[in-house]
Every structure is written in C-alpha cells, then in structure tokens.
C-alpha cells in the first residue's frame, strides 16, 4: 500500500527570487518598477531644481488674471477682460465643436466610401480606393493648410460683394461664401419663452428627443402588430407627424424668423458665420479620418462570411437590405473598436487648429495664454489633462456602444 503525501514544503529562501521561475518574474518586475520610479523622481527633482535656479515656480494664479486678448470664435460670452480660465473654456468648447462635427462627417463619409469600395461597379470601387489612398497617405496638417489656402485664394473677399456691380453675389440672396467664412441665415425668435436664448433651443432639442422616442414607440408597435398578424401597418405619415408637428408648433409659438446676413462695413453681419478656419479644419479632419474609417468598414464587411450574404439573398432580400439588415449589424463588432481610435485621433488631431488660426484649446490655453504669461509647464500640464479626460470619455462612451453591438455569447 502506498500513500501519496504532499511534497515537503520548502521554506522560502532569498536565492529563490532569482533561481525559482515562480518568483523570478516578480523580481524583475519589481526592479523595473523601482527603476522607473527613481527615473521619474530624478526628472521631477531636476525640473524643480532647474526651475528654482531660474527663479521660477509652478503656480496656477494666472488662470484668474484677465487674458487681455480677443478670440474670433466664442461659443460662450468672452471678451479681452475675461480671465485666462474663461479663454481656456472658449478653447475647450471650440475643440469639442470641431471634434464633434468631424466625427459625424468622417463616420458618414467613411461608411459610404467603405461600402462603395466593395461595389461590383469597377469605376465606383476604383474611385473609392483612389480617395482612400490619396487622403490617408498625406499628413492631415497638409490637408488642413491646402484646404484653407484654397479657400482664402479662391473665394472672394467680402469687399467683392460691395458696389453697384459687385464681383461676387450671394447665393439665393441669403448665403455668402467669402474667404473669411460662410455666412448663412440665422434663426431668430420673436417671442421666446425664456429670457436666455440658449434655453429656448434646449427646449426645441428636448421636443426633438421626445419625438424620437415617440417614433421608436410607434415602430415597436408596428413590429408587434406585424409579428401578431403578419401585416405591417403603414406608419410613415404618423412618423412624419410625430417628428414635425410638435417642433413646428413650438417654433410657431416662439415666432421663428430668419435673419439674413448683410454686408455692413468691412464684413457681413447678421445670421450665422461659419469661420474659414473651422471649415478648413472640419473638412480636412473629416476627409482624412474618413479614409481610415472607410478601411475599417471594408475590413468589417469582409470579415462577415460570404455565406451570410448568400443565405440572406436566398431568402429573397434585396442587396440593400442584405447590407443593412444582415451584413452591417454583424460587421459593427469588427468596425467599432478601431472606430474608437479614429474618434480619438480626430480629437487629438484637432490640436493642429493653430495652423489656420482656429481658436481651439491648444491655440488659446496652449498658445496665446502660455505665451503671454510664460507659464509653459502649467499650461502644458493642463492641456495634457484636458486631452486625456476627453479621450477617456470618448473611449468610455464608445465602449458602452461596443458592448451593445458585440457578439452576445450566451
């Protein structure tokens, strides 16, 4: 009879840290960590010592001082007497604006180009690969500058619109394309419900959100009905009504009218101005990143086995429906993760705004404020914090979406 006993427990010895494979990796990781900490500490103390030697210190006092400069695109109230902090907020909002706009247009552009690149039509698919190869292989900074330069050189200056026989005229009498930007009619409310203009528009937005829930509910009802009876009730006029009636009624109550841009003095005034730098940056980021997204979309679609398409086709679905109902939903789980990095790239690339004088956070806080106050380290640290926060926030939101569309394993 034999008994199996546990091997004798060997007591821990210091030499085992190196000789025993169970511990060795921990040893090296600990050493690496210590070295890293020492290095960072050395650099930090070096910085502190050099700053002290130069008689400088780290202080964020300057954020409260008046900025002293003006900004050409401000989404929130700002003048030259506002604080540096307010200038930073103006920059943050401008960054978010252009990033948001570019993410939307790049996605639309990318999905369309990606799908068309797989088209059976030779001309269409070659045109799309031409687009992808041209735009993603030239640095985005060059695109921004090219687009901006072409805009300023080709479009007329506002003074060309002046005189009895102007060299340029407005499109439909209400859109002015100038080399300083595009002026479009702006909505005006004659009898707003709230004193603050922004609140009125928030109300409009809320109504639209309500409409979207309404139309969703309608479509769910129609689906339920279809599953019960096999016939889908016609709902499109109801959907239209749900979308438009509440908004139109609300706007009519508030007395919506349009304010047209008109040439006054040196520039157009009235209406909404979409500045040249914003257009150049938005457009360049969209077409550049759109090319990358197109490749992601193509990869996603090609990852779906051909059998899916054939099965769907054999059920009698038309090619458009095959794409929308069968292929794209499955492709999304491949497309979304790289799409997140493209969104992050757009946000980070928007810091190239300074090349065309767009007042983003890098231009206000990291540019003019840094320069006028000389607080380089402080400003750059704040910038890093901002971009990190925004990038993590985008990743967070997109990961939630990714979890919603990824393959459910039950």
């Amino acid at each position: 009879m034999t008994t199996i006993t546990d091997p004798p427990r060997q007591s821990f010895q210091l030499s085992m840290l190196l000789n025993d494979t169970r511990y060795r990796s921990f040893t090296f990781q600990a050493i690496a960590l210590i070295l890293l900490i020492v290095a960072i500490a050395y650099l930090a103390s070096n910085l502190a010592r050099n700053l002290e030697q130069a008689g400088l210190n780290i202080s964020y006092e300057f954020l409260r001082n008046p900025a002293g400069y003006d900004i050409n695109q401000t989404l929130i109230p700002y003048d030259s007497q506002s604080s540096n902090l307010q200038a930073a907020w103006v920059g943050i909002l401008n960054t978010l604006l252009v990033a948001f706009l570019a993410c939307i247009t790049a996605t639309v552009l990318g999905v369309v180009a990606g799908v068309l690149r797989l088209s059976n039509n030779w001309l269409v698919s070659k045109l799309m690969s031409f687009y992808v190869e041209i735009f993603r292989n030239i640095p985005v900074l060059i695109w921004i500058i090219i687009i901006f330069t072409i805009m300023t050189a080709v479009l007329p200056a506002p003074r060309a619109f002046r005189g009895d026989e102007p060299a340029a005229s407005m499109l439909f009498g209400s859109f002015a394309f100038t080399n300083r930007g595009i002026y479009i009619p702006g909505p005006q409310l004659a009898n707003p419900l709230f004193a603050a203009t922004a609140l009125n528009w928030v109300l409009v937005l809320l109504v639209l959100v309500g409409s979207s829930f309404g139309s969703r509910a309608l479509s769910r009802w129609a689906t339920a009905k279809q599953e019960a009876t096999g016939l889908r009730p016609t709902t499109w006029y109801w959907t239209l009504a749900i979308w438009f009636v509440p908004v139109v009624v609300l706007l009519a109550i508030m007395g919506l009218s349009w304010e047209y841009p008109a040439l006054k003095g040196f520039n157009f005034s009235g209406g909404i101005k979409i500045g040249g730098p914003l257009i150049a940056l938005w457009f360049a980021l969209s077409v550049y990143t759109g090319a990358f997204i197109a490749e992601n979309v193509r990869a996603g679609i090609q990852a779906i086995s051909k059998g899916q398409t054939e099965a769907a086709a054999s059920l009698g679905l038309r090619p458009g429906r095959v794409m929308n109902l069968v292929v794209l939903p499955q492709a999304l789980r491949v497309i979304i993760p790289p799409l997140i990095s493209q969104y992050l790239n757009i946000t980070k690339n928007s810091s190239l705004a300074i090349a065309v004088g767009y007042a983003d956070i890098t231009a206000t806080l990291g540019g003019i404020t840094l320069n006028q106050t000389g607080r380089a380290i402080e400003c750059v640290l704040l910038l890093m914090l901002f971009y990190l926060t925004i990038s993590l926030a985008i990743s967070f939101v997109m990961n939630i979406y990714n979890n919603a569309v990824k393959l459910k394993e039950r």
Partner: protein
Amino acid sequence: MKKSVFLGALTVAGLAAAAAAAGTVDDVKARGKLNCGVTTGLVGFAAPDANGEWNGFDVAVCRGVAAAVLGDPAAVEFVPTTGKTRFTALASGEIDMLARNTTWTFSRDVDLKFTFVGVNYYDGQGFMVPKDLGVSSAKELDGATVCIQTGTTTELNLADFFRSNNISYEPVPIETNAEAQQQYLAGACDVYTTDASGLAATRATFEDPAAHVLLPEIISKEPLGPLVRHGDNEWGDVVRWTLNALITAEELGVTSANIGEMAAGTNNPEINRLLGTEGTLGEMLGLDAEWAKRAIMAGGNYGEIFAKNIGEDTPIGLARGLNAQWTEGGLLYSPPFR
C-alpha cells in the same frame, strides 16, 4: 524602444543641468559659435538672402557680439524663432541671445526672467490697410477683420485699443509674418497690424507697395531690443556693451571706414577707451582689448547698420525718427565708456 526614450530623456535632463551651471561666455568660446535667435524672416531685420546668408538689422547685433567674443562675425548659428517659440528657446539655453525685434516689457523682464540689455529700435504698433478701402484713421476700423501675429505684445495692444475706443473687430491669429502677408494680400483680413517698422518692411516686399497705406495712429510703445537669460550677468554685460559700443561709435564718429586710422590712437580719450588703445575695458569684460573694434568692423556703427538695412535708401525706407542719436533729437543714449 522604451529604454532608448528613457535614456534620451536622462541625457536631456543632464545636459540641461550642465548648461545652467557654466557661464555663457565660456560656453560660446568653447563652442566657437554664437547661437543667436532671430525671426523666421522679416526683410530688413533678419532674413536670409539668395545665398542663404542672414542679413538685417537684428542680425547685425548678433554678428557684432560674435565678432567681439569670438573675433569672427560669421561665427553665428542663426536660429529662426516664431513669436511663440522665442522665449522657450532662450530660457532652455537653445540660443545664447535673442535679437528678434522683441518688445521690452515689465512681465517679460520680471516674470519670464529675461534681461533686456538695451534698445536697438524704438518702435510703435501701427496698422496697414489697402488704399482702396478708403480708411484714413484706425478709429474707422469698426467691425474690421485684423490679421495679427499671435503671442506678441501687439495682440494685447490691439485688444486694448479697440476696447478703449469702443469699437469691435475680429482677430485672425497668425504664426509668422509670411503667413500674415499672404492672408492680408488675399483679403482674408482687412487690416494687418504689427510694429510700424515691421509693417514698412513687409510692405516693401509687396508687388505694389503704393496700394497700401500705414494709418497715422501709433497705438503703443515698442522698445525692441536684444535679450539674454537672467542670472548670467557677465554674458548680459557682453551683449549690452557690444550694443552700446555700436551706438557710441556713431556718436563719436567712428565708422567702419575710419576705424583703422582711429584705432591707431586719437586725441579723444573716449574713442581710445572704446577701441582699446587706452584703459582696460575689454579685460574687465573678460574679453581682449580690441573687442569693440571688431564689433564695429563687423557691420559698421549703429548708423551704418541702420542705413544699410532699413534706412531711407533701402526699399523699407524708415526714417531715423526716435532712433536718432540723443545729440540729434532722438532717444539713442549710450552710457559712457569709462
């Protein structure tokens, strides 16, 4: 990869510590070259010519210092800096001195820790507009779009001027003078504003300079001068007194043409002290006796440098105005060489 970045960072940190320790005069002598920060290109003040040779009013100061310290006016490494990069370049030790039409202000001197060694050009901020705009005063610029170099004092002056006159404007921030010129000529902005000397220099390069006018308002004081880092007074003295030597030479009538004969000795003791035939001024400065002579020979005295680069006979065509010697009603007043 990670390791090499890390080692690189350590090296940079180590070098930075070393640069802070030694004196700049010794560094420059050991290197055999003066690193001088200039503009990225402003004709008349600092711009490379067809042969890649840097020329101009600010460049002449760099060459003067190089001649005084190293004995060779060509021993200069010109580092082009923008309005935004110039102070970081100087503070980090990348350049030894900055001669880049930079305005001497309280905060740059006290808060950014730089030493302005003097003024080589008394300037003021002006406005340039196309003539066909029909504007005759800056106060008529309500609602105008203004091109402005970002990171400069002019940016703040502009905001102050429009606010105090209760008129509005739209700024177009621009990195370099060349970019501003392009935007202005394309009509993307109605007005270009910077130091009046810079406007004159920019206008001189236009195809049709007569189609553009400088408005009469000068809205600020802009004393432009070379600067060095705080904390190295010996180096500051060298640059300061080189500039003063150029100014004094004009006052005393020492030119690049007659310096040879004057260096043989004159009956004016101050000239003798300046040129090193009397006294030990050079030695006090840590240089040899002929430092000032070489600085003057590099490009002539202040008046010659002015006339050659930006004076009335050049396309830029600036009058001496405030920049005349004090004896002729200007503000140039060098402390005595004694």
